[in-house]
């Protein structure tokens, strides 16, 4: 089981959204990290074959996905970043509608819908109209629809957006369980989500993969670039302007800063252990 893409490129006029990215994904959880506009959503849409690449190809088990058509979409589950819903439908009706589009026979669909609503903690709200749902509940319905056909490839664009911490942990555990023999690709801004479940992380910037590897491998790259220093509280603002400050904590009239820099930022700065968030800020700190 392999989802691969080769020199995948997407131009919007003169703007390059995705620039010759290639990778081969085998079963496991892949985290796609990047700032807004890095090209994550465009890449995911091309992987779902709903956006035509300017050049490059996507392969599922060595077969080109657009040529596979419905056969590829049969193994695909997708949660778009900003998905809509038909406000007049209940959660159960909406899932039944998507199940119909996925070609799932009615009896099988009813069983799957019940199971998924239960897994997502929505069984009690199954008969409620979607327009009455909170953001988190809608997001859970979105995740449920992606899982309806028991997909081999699950592509989730910002799945944890709008979920509270408890729901996020629940979803993370669900995905970690689910990924066993499947390919799960998720994009998120929440670095801790990627850190918790991703087997491999792909970091995108300006339409290209700038880093890829396991979480420990990537964290190692940030080692030696994270420093902690204590400064008078009034100097904290100045430090924030001149360096990437990952964290700021006040202790009386002093401020403890976590600074990300290639060189020791001051003589009294002490090196400390890096995290994925530090790595993210190292690459995207200036953009933020």
């Amino acid at each position, binding site marked *: 089981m392999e989802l691969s893409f080769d020199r995948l490129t997407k131009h919007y006029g003169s703007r390059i959204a995705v620039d010759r990215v290639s990778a081969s994904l085998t079963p496991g959880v892949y985290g796609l990290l990047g700032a807004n506009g890095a090209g994550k959503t465009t890449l995911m*849409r091309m992987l*779902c*074959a*709903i*956006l*035509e690449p300017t050049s490059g190809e996507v392969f599922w*088990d*060595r077969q080109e996905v*657009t040529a*596979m*058509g*419905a056969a590829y*979409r*049969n193994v*695909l589950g*997708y*949660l*778009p970043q*900003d*998905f*809509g*819903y*038909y*406000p007049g439908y209940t959660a159960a*009706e909406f899932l*039944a*509608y*998507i199940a*119909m*589009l*996925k*070609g*799932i*026979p009615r009896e*099988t669909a009813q069983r799957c819908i019940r199971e998924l609503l239960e897994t997502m903690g929505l069984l009690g709200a199954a008969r409620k109209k979607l327009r009455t749902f909170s953001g988190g509940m809608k997001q859970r319905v*979105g995740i449920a*629809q992606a899982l309806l*056909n028991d997909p081999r490839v699950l592509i989730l664009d910002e799945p944890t957006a709008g979920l509270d911490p408890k729901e996020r942990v629940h979803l993370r555990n669900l995905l970690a369980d689910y990924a066993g023999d499947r390919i799960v690709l998720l994009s998120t801004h929440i670095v801790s989500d990627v850190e918790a479940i991703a087997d491999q992380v792909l970091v995108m910037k300006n339409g290209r993969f700038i880093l890829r590897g396991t979480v420990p491998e990537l964290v190692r790259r940030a080692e030696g670039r994270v420093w902690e220093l204590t400064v008078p509280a009034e100097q904290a603002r100045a430090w924030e302007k001149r360096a990437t400050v990952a964290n700021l904590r006040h202790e009386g009239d002093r401020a403890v800063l976590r600074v990300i820099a290639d060189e020791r930022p001051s003589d009294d700065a002490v090196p400390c252990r890096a995290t994925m968030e530090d790595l993210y800020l190292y690459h995207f700190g200036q953009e933020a």
Partner: protein
Amino acid sequence: MRERELEARLSRVLGRETTPRRLDETAELCRRIVEEETGPAEPGLGFWGFLSGVFRFEWASIGACQAAALLLVGLFLYGAPKELKYIPVYVPLFVLAVVPVLFRGQYCGTGELEAATRASGAQLALARLILSGAANLVCMTALLWLEVRLTGRSRELGRMILYCLVPYLAGMTLLLRLIRGRKKDAIGQCAAMALGSCLFWRASSHVAPGLYELSAVGVWIAACAVFGAFFTREICFLVKADKEGKMYGTVV
């Protein structure tokens, strides 16, 4: 002694790089074995099953749009002069009633989600078009029945049918062409086209009243054939996109 010999042989074999000669064949064999182990895929819905599924979920919205158009047309018919030349003015309203159905996914933001399912965007558009077309036929039959009752000119039913078909085929052809063009503001353009058609046919009844004489029936038959051909061509594009599993219209 034998162990050493075995070790030497193994290291010779393992140390040698091999180039797989039957890689594709082996990959195909593995794929077949996995498929056999996991069992055959559950049969999906055929097109007619899919169509009935779409009907199950969309009949209310399709029916509501067409009923609203029919009600509007009925009100116009009672209020307006009872002349056949006004029939083409009302027909684009039925085309307008198709717009919310065809653009439902785009309007509600479910287009991207629907496009990533087994049913391609084109298949869903085709199913919605067939169901809307069927509803259009029912509504236009009702329009003709009303017209016959109000004017009492049942002998001129043939002309009435032509006055319905030509604006309908022209409107639907333009609608499908606009969708196929994947313009960002296609919803607005389609709605404007349908309303513009109403004005065009209204103007034509004033500017060229001769067009609605019995002697001009040939022109209407020719127009019906021309727009019928263009409409068929648009349907062929849609069916082709469906067969190739492609998108139809704007999805993202």
